């Protein structure tokens, strides 16, 4: 670092390719932008990332980590055109100290934060060289408009200015801090709208989020907090992702072993995936299914490794709705949000699609299919197409098959349950006459000459035969009532004379309607 002057300022240059991506709008959400900085912290072997949004004003956003820090030379290289370049493998595929898989790109992180502010400061205390710098980065206002009229034949473009000063290294401050000071008004406006402070603990946060039908019912601050918790390489909350099941325990172990913690305004985050989200919504065990996915493939000579699951719950939609679909992760970092179309699944599954939630974590491969925003995929990349096929196959062969089997079983159980209910009601009504409890047999037809007789009763053996062809009312409750009246009529006929028969019938009739 000796050949670098103590202070330096200059234009921020990006390649025409990167400029094109900026022009197209790099990040669609605040969480997408902050996720990239969290990934940078993870790569820098940080074990703590603290995000502060300065609520309720939301006028300063800072992301501070205690990692190795960014070296000044790297920062200057980024300012001089390296943002967006594919140099991530230069220093290896794992982080130097903790051997974590490298998941982010420093330059994209810096570009990401600029999506939410007009200017920011970066302060880095680099552990291994014991050097430090502080820089202010200011992007050109109305950049997109300028891009539209820019010359198209240049190799690099200026997108802003930076000023840098070396500062004294401080071990206590080791790591990187990014402080966004002039927040974009859209950001500020969104976060202030319907603002509610975050609760004191993640349990409280989770239990409130789990009760909403959609994250749209939450304010932007809470929604962003949830999205960041979902996206970061953090351990699952409360034994997730599926209540009462151990799903991919090695992955949870790996996430715990990272010892990586992220907090937003002092709220420590965990991965908020616990299906079903509310314990009170837990379906019977036989109405849930987990399809495990394991990926060990080679695509065009490159490995594609990973694992995942597709959780289904029969006949019951998953809430919050944002958990429906499949979430693809690369090295445990979420890429975008849950895809409700299951990576463009070709068949319209109607409401059944809302019963399924899954995650697919790719540990090796797929990264080259990422677009520059690192939040979406190039959908023609061979790795992406392979992952898509795997998801569709799992959906077809495991999820859909189970859904149909389960639907049939649920119908059967429902039918049995209704029969039981009916039997108990009849038993209760006619217990004086059939103390052993009646056995109800449904007969398709009594045949001639009893074709139109709805019910036959043999009180001696407590058996009731119901003629299904007797022209019953269609509505189930009306049919049950009609059956009970017919049974009462048949039991009354057991009496030896008409007066007694009438008395018994009206006694039972009264009982039926009491």
């Amino acid at each position, binding site marked *: 670092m000796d050949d670098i002057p103590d202070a330096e300022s200059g234009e921020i240059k990006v390649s025409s390719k990167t400029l094109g991506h900026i022009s197209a709008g790099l990040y669609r959400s605040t969480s997408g932008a902050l996720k990239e900085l969290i990934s940078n912290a993870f790569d820098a072997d940080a074990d*703590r990332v603290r995000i502060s949004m300065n609520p309720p004003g939301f*006028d*300063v956003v800072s992301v501070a980590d205690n990692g190795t820090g960014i070296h000044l030379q790297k920062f200057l290289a980024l300012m001089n055109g390296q943002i967006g370049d594919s140099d991530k493998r230069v220093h290896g595929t794992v982080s130097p100290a903790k051997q974590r898989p490298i998941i982010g790109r420093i330059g994209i992180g810096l570009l990401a934060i600029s999506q939410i502010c007009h200017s920011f400061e970066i302060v880095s205390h680099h552990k291994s060289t014991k050097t430090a710098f502080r820089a202010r980065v200011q992007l050109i*206002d109305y950049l997109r408009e300028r891009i539209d009229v820019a010359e198209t034949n240049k190799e690099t473009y200026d997108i802003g200015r930076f*000023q840098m000063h070396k500062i004294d290294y401080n071990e206590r401050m080791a790591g990187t801090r990014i*402080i966004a000071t002039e927040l974009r*008004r859209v950001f*500020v406006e969104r976060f202030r709208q319907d603002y509610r402070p975050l609760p*004191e603990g993640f349990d409280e946060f989770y239990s409130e989020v789990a009760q909403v039908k959609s994250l749209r019912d939450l304010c932007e601050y809470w929604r962003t907090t949830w999205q960041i918790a979902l996206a970061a390489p953090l351990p699952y909350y409360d034994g997730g992702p599926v209540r009462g099941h151990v799903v991919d325990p090695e992955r949870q172990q790996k996430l715990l072993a990272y010892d990586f913690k992220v907090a937003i305004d*002092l709220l420590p985050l965990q991965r908020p995936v616990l299906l079903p989200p509310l314990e009170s919504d837990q379906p019977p065990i036989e109405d849930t299914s987990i399809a495990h996915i394991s990926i060990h493939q080679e695509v065009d000579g490159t490995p594609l490794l990973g694992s995942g699951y597709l959780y289904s719950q029969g006949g019951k939609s998953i809430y919050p709705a944002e958990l429906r679909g499949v979430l693809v992760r690369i090295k445990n970092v979420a890429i975008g949000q849950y895809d409700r179309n299951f990576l463009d699944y070709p068949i319209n599954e109607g409401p059944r699609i809302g019963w399924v939630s899954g995650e697919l974590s790719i540990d090796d491969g797929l990264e080259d299919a990422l677009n520059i925003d690192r939040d979406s995929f190039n959908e023609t990349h061979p790795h992406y197409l392979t992952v898509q096929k795997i998801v569709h196959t799992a959906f077809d062969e495991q999820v859909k098959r189970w859904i149909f089997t389960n639907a049939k079983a649920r119908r059967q159980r429902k039918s049995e349950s209704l029969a039981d209910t009916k039997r108990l009601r009849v038993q209760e009504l006619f217990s004086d006459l059939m103390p052993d409890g009646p056995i109800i047999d449904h007969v398709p037809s009594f045949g001639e000459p009893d074709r139109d007789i709805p019910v036959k009763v043999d009180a001696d053996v407590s058996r009731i035969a119901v003629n299904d062809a007797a022209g019953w009312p269609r509505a189930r409750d009306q049919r049950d009532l009609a059956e009970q009246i017919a049974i009462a009529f048949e039991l009354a006929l057991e009496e030896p004379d008409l007066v007694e028969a009438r008395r018994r019938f009206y006694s039972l009739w009264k009982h039926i309607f009491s």
Partner: protein
Amino acid sequence: VKPLDGEESSWKALVQSDRVDYDRDPIKHYIRVHGWLPPSTACAASIAPRRVRYFTFCAANAVDVFMLEQAGILQRDANGRLRGTFFCEADAEAFEEIVQLIRSADQGFLGRFEDIVLFDDSPSTFNRTYTDPGPGKITERLRERLRIKDLHEKMRAAFPFDLINLDATGTLLPPNQGAASDLVKAIMRVIAWQGEALLPNGGRIDQFSLFLTAEVDNSALNYNAIGQLISLVNCNLEQMSGFRDCWERKFGASSVDELARARFPEFFPVAFVKAVVENSSRLGWDVASDGRFLYRRMRRGATYRMMSEVLTFHRVAPAPVNSLFDPTWGISSVNSTKRVIEVVQRAAVWADDAVSIEAEAGRVGRHLRGVREFRENVLTRFDV
């Protein structure tokens, strides 16, 4: 690579400015312990069970915050969020350090205190807000003005406070400003806000303490403003016999001009605080001087002096309907002679002399170490 110039160089100066190590400075801690802690403790006791509301210019180490927390005056919730503590800091890096360190549940204000407090709408900002700047392109300058306007509204809404710690590093009367500097005007506006603002529970405060620290250096002051202070004292000496007796007992019979030249660090706090007392009385506050500290610092080999005044305000009149403050240093229309005499009588303690005594240095050092350890414990306990 371009040379740094203009606006950039001011940022560079900010980055590279000398910083006192407040974590280990016995002089500053002597003032915290002997000046700020006693009235803070009394305040917390008098308003209990209501929580103390504290506004501070805490430096990045936030020793004052942790000292008050250690004394039970400020409190955290179960998750480690400090409640009722607001801070203002102009430097983004220091701001971020404070955020990470004190972990306040309340908002910090990133900007120059004077700019935020004194913001007044101009034609360019009228009917515009940061989040709704209106049609057309927004220049950087306008955006910054709107940002300050936004902070102004938020800061005003945060008032009132039970303790206000304006621990400034510059002078109160810098040479390049008017007779009443921005900081002085901001202090008086804040005192006015204290009278008007409602607590979250809808009530008003009847008492608060103001800790005012600033550089006292007659080589970098606004002589016009000092001239006005001298005139004011002369006027008081002519018109108020009790004041004259008291003044002469303290400073002798030499002229005020001579005193201001020869013993400026002693003259300035008296004259300045006297003016604050008089002007505050117009706003319905009875102000008592509860402590005055002076100390010497070194900067690039040269000595300069600092003052730290502890003032306690008691409400004696309802809040004025119109808060607009006319920063003219005139004679108060309210009889505040008694308080003014007290201001003159208040003996200044030279804090650097006090801590040069071994026993006192030991006591202060141990207390400061205790605060640092407490801070580490808090940060460890609530590590997230």
